[in-house]
């Protein structure tokens, strides 16, 4: 149990390739922080810097009260779950779990107790004598979790642990990992490229892009008030639509957008904020041509083109409407649901 403090962390590889810059995150004891971003954004590098698998070239990293910049991975009191599980293929499940304890000189009965406890918790008790190759993907995932658990470390580090699982198992393991983490109250740092995983699992999530932090906040803060156009586009599926403010001003009375800051030349609209109901008080009406209707069971995605707008605009409805592709549809959106951005800086204005 410990907090993790990242103070101006940065990573420059030899040859002056910059992977991470100016990362400041304070992780409270027991908190689950999810690092999310597209591939190449530096999230895995940052995690590996915390683990001690990559050297830290700038800033300081504290786990608990200790500065651990120079410590070996083994001395940082962390455990890591790898994307490919990294189970030792020549050892039984029991020995996989026990390996870290043996290396630390635990007594035999203590090792036995801890391994069995973790195995019961993860329901892998009957696989203890098997080799990893005799297990399914989900079971291997549990063993990898178990290997982290038995050590009872100060922090868990997860490097995209669910990306090798099929969709159904991924949802199940997501829930289990989160429940387990809450129960144990162990500080966790979780890396993923999947925004849904990030939203559902995090106490707070950190959106990274190009090695820099775009936004830190609780999932709902980030979702409801994305700080940059990047976050707006990355968090939420389908992604937030972007329209030039000038386009909207051409549609409505001059005073209808009076609340928008002057600097806001770009407006974001969440697909689910568009509705087919007629525009009422405080709402804006938008008409577009329906290019494609994607029914998805409980909801549907409508791909629309607006006159003079290059990008396709997507609307998400909580039902499948009875409309023809190619027809013109009028949507309404509440004015306070518009997200104002400055196109030049990419930042949210007010």
């Amino acid at each position, binding site marked *: 149990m410990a907090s993790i403090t990242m103070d101006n962390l940065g990573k420059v590889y030899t040859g002056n390739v910059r992977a991470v810059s100016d990362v400041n995150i304070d992780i409270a004891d027991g908190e689950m922080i999810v690092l999310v971003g597209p591939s190449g954004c530096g999230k895995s590098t940052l995690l590996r810097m915390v683990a001690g698998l990559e050297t830290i070239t700038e800033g300081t990293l504290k786990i608990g009260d200790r500065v651990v910049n120079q410590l070996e991975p*083994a001395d940082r009191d*962390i455990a890591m779950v790898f*994307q490919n599980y990294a189970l030792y*293929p020549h050892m039984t499940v029991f020995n996989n779990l026990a390996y*870290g304890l043996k290396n630390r000189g635990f007594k035999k009965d203590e090792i036995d107790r801890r391994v069995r406890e973790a195995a019961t918790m993860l329901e892998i008790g009957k696989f203890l004598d098997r080799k990893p*190759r005799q297990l399914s993907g989900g079971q291997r995932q549990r063993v990898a979790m178990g290997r982290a658990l038995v050590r009872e470390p100060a922090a868990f580090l997860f490097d995209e642990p669910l990306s090798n699982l099929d969709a159904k198992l991924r949802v199940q393991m997501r829930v289990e990992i989160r429940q387990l983490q809450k129960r144990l109250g162990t500080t966790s740092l979780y890396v993923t490229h999947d925004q849904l995983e990030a939203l559902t699992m995090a106490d707070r999530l950190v959106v990274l892009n190009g090695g820099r932090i775009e936004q830190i906040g609780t999932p709902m803060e980030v979702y409801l008030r994305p700080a940059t156009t990047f976050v707006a586009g990355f968090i939420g599926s389908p992604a937030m639509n972007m329209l030039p403010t000038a386009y909207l001003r051409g549609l409505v009375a001059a005073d209808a957008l009076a609340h928008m800051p002057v600097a806001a030349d770009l407006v974001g609209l969440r697909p689910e904020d568009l509705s087919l109901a007629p525009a009422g008080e405080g709402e804006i009406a938008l008409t577009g041509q329906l290019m494609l209707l994607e029914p998805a069971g409980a909801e549907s995605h409508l791909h629309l083109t607006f006159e003079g707008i290059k990008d396709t605009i997507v609307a998400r409805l909580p039902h499948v409407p009875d409309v023809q592709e190619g027809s013109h549809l009028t949507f309404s959106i509440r004015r306070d649901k518009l997200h104002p951005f400055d196109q030049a800086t990419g930042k949210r204005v007010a």
Partner: protein
Amino acid sequence: MQTKRMTFSNNWLPYALLAPQVIVTLIFFIWPASQALYQSFLRQDIFGLRTTFVWFDNFNRLFADPLYLNSLKVTFWFSVGTTVLSMSVALLFAVMVNRMIRSRDSYTTFLVWPYAVAPAIAGVLWWFIFNPSIGIMPYMLKGFGYDWNHRSSSTDAMTLVIIAAAWKQISYNFLFFLAGLQSIPQSLIEAAAIDGASRFKRFWTIVFPLLSPITFFLMVVNVVYAMFDTFGVIHATTEGGPAQATNILVYKVYRDGFVNLNLGSSAAQSVILMGIVIVLTVIQFRYIERRVNY
């Protein structure tokens, strides 16, 4: 594995396609092997005038012959020495090269070169290096107070042929070990590092066990090499001496057959060697496919 079945429209075409391989095998293996087998049952008088069929007498004599038993012992130690030396040095090199990033390819290239050298040339090379009168090694060893002479000391002679034979084989083993090391996922090593294993411990508890299929394969290959492909090394350096100290089985076959002209005994010895090769090959095929450690 599912193999695709190919059907030929013409009946003799498959036989024609197989013919070259079959002919080569017949002429260069089956025929000489059966000749050896046949000759191993024969004995000629000194002048080659009379040949008698003696059944297994050649074999009986061999196993009663202290020189032959000595040769078996010499071969055993020579094979073990060559295999252990070439494999451990190769593994050491592979581990060191595997840790390099940019210079890895150039080191690999240099380390593979000795494999292109013929065994006889390798033998001559080491014969010069260890030559008691003009060699650099005896000169240096003298500095440490060791009087090297492989012409009189059987230990020195054995050491020389083992070094010469192993040197060449290091390249081959090195390539396999390097490929093996590179196929071990980096995340396993990292996981072990987080699990608190020291560099040394990581190697012996993770890397080495994962290399075991390759190690086993190389062990068989190296034993076969040491027993059968080292004629040139022995011939160019010690010629089996001093006092039979390096007279390995293949070399003895040559000596007894072509120098001492005891063709019956020589043939019997080759038949025994053939048996050993067959056993080793069977072991290799059996275990390589099944006994994978994980």
